[in-house]
């Protein structure tokens, strides 16, 4: 390992590979192409893709929280529901309905700050169920609002002021933009100094703290980002469904979906949740009609993946091939083989 041979082929730290450059360009191109969706696709597919974008947001946000922050939350539907609720409230107060969708997500992100101060003091399983209680409490409190009328619910009436066609296209574009922005934010964040801290916390929280990573502040950042992103997904879901029945938004089935997408795709990998969302979207199209068995299957898949393939499909691919499509880490090129 010493001598001229080593200096000749000095190991270089690299982030980009030709393949990853191509895939980032491809990702941007796909998003640009998707922007033409409502102009060329039939309405059915526009709706379906809108749903897919929402799933991608949910998966990427849950993965940021659990895969990178090490914070497994059963209670993310709290933010999904609050996002929809805030949008209903804002629209009811006369705010432009599209603006209220985005503002709702920001408001929920703001509300997540004080929640984080309490919840982040809990560890592992306690945090997971503690967040579940947060979701239950948020659900019950929203039910008390006269506007919502308990489980009867209400709807985003302001939305009906727009024609079905323009509404469909607008919500599609908004969902696409939200997805692109949120995935982009996570990508940039993970590549930054904070990203190094986040990944250090993921790998070993105590060791990260020992080398000077501000663990709590970093976790808080992810928690708030995940809350705002999940709220955005909830507001978008409301925009496609129009009706707001608290039960369907605060329900724990959303957690099952998020866990399924992230576990199957690849917990703690950047590409994994994107893959997981597409898989979930496909499976739902095929088996969603089979009702209860479909949910049994989701639960069983989550159980099996957590036991036998905890880093999901993408994690398994990454460990076998040096494949980094959207690089958030570094790799060593030309390093001595016998390291």
């Amino acid at each position, binding site marked *: 390992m010493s001598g001229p041979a080593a200096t000749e082929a000095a190991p270089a730290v690299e982030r980009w590979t030709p393949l990853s450059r191509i895939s980032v360009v491809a990702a941007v191109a796909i998003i640009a192409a998707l922007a033409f969706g409502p102009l060329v696709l039939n309405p059915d597919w526009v709706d379906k893709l809108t749903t897919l974008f929402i799933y991608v947001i949910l998966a990427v946000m849950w993965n940021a929280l659990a895969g990178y922050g090490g914070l497994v939350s*059963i209670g993310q539907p709290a933010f999904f529901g609050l996002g929809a609720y805030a949008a209903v409230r804002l629209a009811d107060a006369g705010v432009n309905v599209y603006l209220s969708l985005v503002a709702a997500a920001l408001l929920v992100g703001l509300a997540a700050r004080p929640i984080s101060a309490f919840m982040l003091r809990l560890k592992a399983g306690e945090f997971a169920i503690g967040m579940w209680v947060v979701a239950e409490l948020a659900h019950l409190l929203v039910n008390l609002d006269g506007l919502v009328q308990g489980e009867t619910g209400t709807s985003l009436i302001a939305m009906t002021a727009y024609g079905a066609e323009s509404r469909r296209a607008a919500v599609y574009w908004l969902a696409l933009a939200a997805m692109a922005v949120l995935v982009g934010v996570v990508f940039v964040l993970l590549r930054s100094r904070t990203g190094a801290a986040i990944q250090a916390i993921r790998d070993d929280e105590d060791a990260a703290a020992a080398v000077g990573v501000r663990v709590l502040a970093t976790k808080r950042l992810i928690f708030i980002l995940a809350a705002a992103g999940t709220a955005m997904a909830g507001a978008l879901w409301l925009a496609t469904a129009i009706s707001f029945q608290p039960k369907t938004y605060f329900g724990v089935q959303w957690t099952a979906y998020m866990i399924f997408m992230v576990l199957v795709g690849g917990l703690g990998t950047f590409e994994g949740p994107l893959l997981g969302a597409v898989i979930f979207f496909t499976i739902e199209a095929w088996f969603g009609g089979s009702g209860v068995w479909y949910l049994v299957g989701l*639960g069983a898949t989550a159980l099996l993946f957590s036991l036998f393939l905890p880093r999901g499909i993408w994690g398994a691919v990454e460990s076998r091939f040096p494949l980094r499509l959207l690089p958030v880490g570094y790799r060593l090129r030309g390093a001595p083989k016998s390291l």
Partner: protein
Amino acid sequence: MIWVNQIVQGVLLGGYYALIACGLSFMFGVMRLINLAHGSIAVMAAFALWMLSGRFQISPFAGLAVVLPLLAALGWVLQRAVLERSARGGALVPILSTFGLAIMIDNLLFQQFGADTRSLAPYLDTLSYDSWTITDDIYVGKLAAMIFAAAVVLLGGLQLFLSNTQLGRSIRATAADADTVGLIGINARRVNAAAAAIAMVTAGVAGAFLAMRATFNPYAGPLQLIFAFEAAVIGGAGSLWGTLGGGILLGVAQSVGAQINPQGFLIAGHLAFFLALFSRLYAGKAGIGRLPQRLRRLFA
């Protein structure tokens, strides 16, 4: 007087919460993991008893003789097949695997039994509504009193078992240090499986009483898990008796909340949970996370 009655009812309700919570915190104390399927398994036991009563005319109490051994076996298998493997994957994997399991159980129950709300009350004769009248406003239901007594007996029995039997001592030793116990000839895997079996039996007892005193449906499990968790955290879970205290506080908060507002039952319970949690966090003591140390100190 109406308030006194609400508090009395809350205290009695706390007995049920202590029953459902003790298995959860026991398992956390020994294996350091929270079983998210705990509530769903209790509801599964309730359905098993309901089926035995409805189809084979076996009284729910006799049915326990059939169901509890099955639950012990289930706990053993659960530990060997799922929890042990999960725990090796780190602190997060058990949450994911047991959540997946809970979703599976809930939906399989729905598939098998449908959405109808059930109760074991019809199979209990007059026990389900008999009560002692203390004053004009205060009634003590015989079933509620029985559940409370069962909670005290079960918690006391568990405590005696932990401090006076060979297996109990092995469980405490394993909770303290699972690696070291191997050196003194304790098989930690078997001890953990036994602890999981015990926890599932307590979940079964809780499920039976849930089904007797109230109604249940296939999706009732998650809420029971939340109640169990809240009672364990409020009680500080420093000891099994702390769990009883936590259950009572939760029950009282809920029944007082219900008196204030029809929606207040659950809200007041959740608020009591957060209040207890944060007062403890800011007082510098963790919630159920402190159990192992306390378990050691308590039984030392």
